[in-house]
């Protein structure tokens, strides 16, 4: 097998960087590195996904044994024109290709990174860009299409419908999808003859966790629903909070909602005894929380894999997901590891259903666990990853 260097290209990367795609890139790169593949990360100096300011120094460093090359990014010019274009895209209105190019050219770009890709293209076997919605990915693929692969982490969202992304997806050598619904979405949007396969994302090894330790540490007793992840409108965190508070008001049931993760959320005063915001917790506490939880809720409608769900299922906890998210619903339908909701009444009844049936919960959790163990292991993922690269190199996909 050709052992040329594989370069992963996320828009930001570092120990302090929190985000699904970045975690995904890091985990996959580290696994390949441990298996003897030459791997590098090419990224910008940004840490914060909102300001995109240069928090890191340009240059080289090693993270987890992998060389990370950082390039300065252009500061994002969020002018009125960019804002208006983005608003039109979000509203689903028609936006010309020139304007789409102008807009993506303002979603974190790095001229220095593109110059490097152009100059050193022969030194790498492949450039794996992740995720699709950034200028670094778009301009990077435009620079070295003949060696480009993409892990798109695609969601069904207005951005995905833009022509720039159709052209980008069709110009790469191969696309590595996380799940079949993501691939179906891509084929629906960009054409059936798209070069891509389901690679499966990342794998999780079983880990030890102690739910009692979590309950004792944070003084939490009784049944609780756990939400883990960034709190933001796109993740439907506020929808979950609203549904849960209404559920408490309508049922007087003794169940709590525990929130862990970064981002601000205002808990209504009169619900603070039942909605507990622990903020950002350590990795150990997070895993203990999964183990302690009665149910894990993933309300996001925009997931391309949902690392939270995969990680939670490993502890054998059932899940409650949003039925309008093709990916999480797909996971639940395939493995039987939980239920889904599409509106408040179904949320109310599904929660009741799970809370009333401890034996079913346990069984669902085990189904979820078996599903992860069977399908998300590194041997299978690396095998599929390698196959996509080889097929791309043969140009046969």
């Amino acid at each position, binding site marked *: 097998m050709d052992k040329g260097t594989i370069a992963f290209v996320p828009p930001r990367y570092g120990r302090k960087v929190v985000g699904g795609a970045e975690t995904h890139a890091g985990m996959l790169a580290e696994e390949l590195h441990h298996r003897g593949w030459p791997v590098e990360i090419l990224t910008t100096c940004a840490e914060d996904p909102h300001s995109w300011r240069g928090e890191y120094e340009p240059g080289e460093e090693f993270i987890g044994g992998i060389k990370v090359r950082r390039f300065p990014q252009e500061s994002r010019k969020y002018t009125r024109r960019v804002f208006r274009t983005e608003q039109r895209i979000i509203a689903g209105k028609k936006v010309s290709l020139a304007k789409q190019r102008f807009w993506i050219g303002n979603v974190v770009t790095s001229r220095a990174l593109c110059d490097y890709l152009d100059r050193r293209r022969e030194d790498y076997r492949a450039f794996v860009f992740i995720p699709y919605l950034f200028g670094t990915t778009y301009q990077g693929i435009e620079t070295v299409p003949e060696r480009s692969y993409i892990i798109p982490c695609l969601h069904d969202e207005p951005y995905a*419908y833009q*022509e720039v992304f*159709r052209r980008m997806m069709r110009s790469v050598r191969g696309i590595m999808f996380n*799940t*079949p*619904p993501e*691939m*179906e979405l891509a*084929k*629906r*949007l*960009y*054409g*059936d003859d798209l070069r891509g396969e*389901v690679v*499966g994302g990342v794998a999780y090894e079983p880990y030890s966790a102690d739910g009692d330790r979590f309950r*004792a*540490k*944070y*003084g*939490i*007793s009784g049944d609780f629903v756990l939400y883990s992840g960034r709190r933001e409108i796109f993740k439907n965190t*506020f929808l979950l*909070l*609203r*549904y849960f*508070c*209404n559920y408490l*008001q*309508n049922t007087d049931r003794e169940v709590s909602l525990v929130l862990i993760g970064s981002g601000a959320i205002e808990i*209504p*005063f*009169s*619900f*603070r*005894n039942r909605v*507990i915001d*622990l903020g950002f917790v350590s990795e150990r506490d997070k895993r203990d929380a999964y183990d302690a939880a009665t149910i894990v809720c993933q309300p996001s409608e925009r997931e391309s894999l949902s690392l939270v769900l995969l990680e939670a299922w490993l502890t054998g906890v059932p899940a409650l997901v949003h039925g309008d998210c093709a990916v999480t619903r797909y996971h*639940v*339908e*395939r*493995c*039987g590891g*939980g*239920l*889904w909701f599409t509106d*408040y*009444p*179904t949320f*109310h*009844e*599904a929660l009741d*259903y799970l809370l009333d049936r401890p034996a*079913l919960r346990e*069984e*669902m959790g085990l*189904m979820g666990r078996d*599903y992860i163990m*069977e*399908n998300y292991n590194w041997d299978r993922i690396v095998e599929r990853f390698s196959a996509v690269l080889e097929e791309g190199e043969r140009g046969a996909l």
Partner: protein
Amino acid sequence: MDQDDKTPLEEEKAGEEAAANLSIEVDDIDVPSIMAEIQSRVERRRQDGVYKDIPILQLEEERTGGGEAEVSLDPLHELIFLSQLARQYAEVTSYYPIGARRSPLGPFILLAKKVIRRFMTPYMDALFAKQREFNNQMVKSLDIFLELIKRERERSYHGGVDRYSAWVEMELGEDLRGVLDEAAGRFDPGEEILELGCGTGDFLAAALKSGREALGVEEDSRLARICQERDLRVVHARPIDYLEAQPSESLRAVFVLDMGERGDSRELLWMINSLADLMERGGRVVSLNHHPRSVLGVEEAFTDPTLIRLVHPDTLAGLFSHAGFREVEVSPLGEFSPGERRDWVERMGGGHGLESGELAELLFAPRRYLLEAGR
């Protein structure tokens, strides 16, 4: 861009092919039929109005009866308040002062009232004695109940949720009155002091008492409300968010209690660096921290379950100097009184040389230190 012109058969085939990538076998749980059951239950119960789903602010307004939420929505806080109220009214008596307002007839009315009371007293006393007994029992029950809840709170808050406010509500915090007066005295009279993380406002009160203006910033809404109830000026915000919103070189006097001893250690560096940007020339930051030198002081400090770490004065001074503060001075505060020393020595089982000498200097080193940093 949509290319959705496949036949149902093709779609089904494509779905099967895609699914073949991930193999799963569901043996016992039929999720689609559970969801169908849930859906039919929703249809049946929808008419009963059980699915009331309203925006969260409206829901909060319904629960709190409109207006602003009371601080005492926390049951423990409510109970502390009620128990204090009950104690005030528990001691009922018939011996109210008797008076008469109309001057010409006043003395006669007064006499009549006194006579009536003289006749009624034996009967009223018997009635009031029963009432007093009942009230005392109720107050005692409330106290026991309160004590039980406090113990439960203390146990359950040892990990982390709202720990500081619970700690303060239990009135278990340190008595800092003397050292806070001392800290307030380090600022110029009439100066407006900003306190970051003002808690229940003890420093703000000390600053006002000593003739300074003071504004507090407090993240915990319960503690902020307690400050408001004490008529102290307070902004409900995270201190780091508040600082971020201030223009450069706009602050003159800042006080911080227990700087860097709670929360994320990165916040300490962030706060010092941003203070360096925000302080005007000649402005001053004063920080009152636990001194790590005193063994017994450290032991006392860590009875507060919210404390995570102590910051050595040299370290804190170094951080301020590194951030660009020109004059940084540290002075110890909070000596152990002779009585406290004796108590500790007794508690430790006595021992020669513990009350004085070199060993005592280490054991009973000052509990706190005050750091003053000038920009």
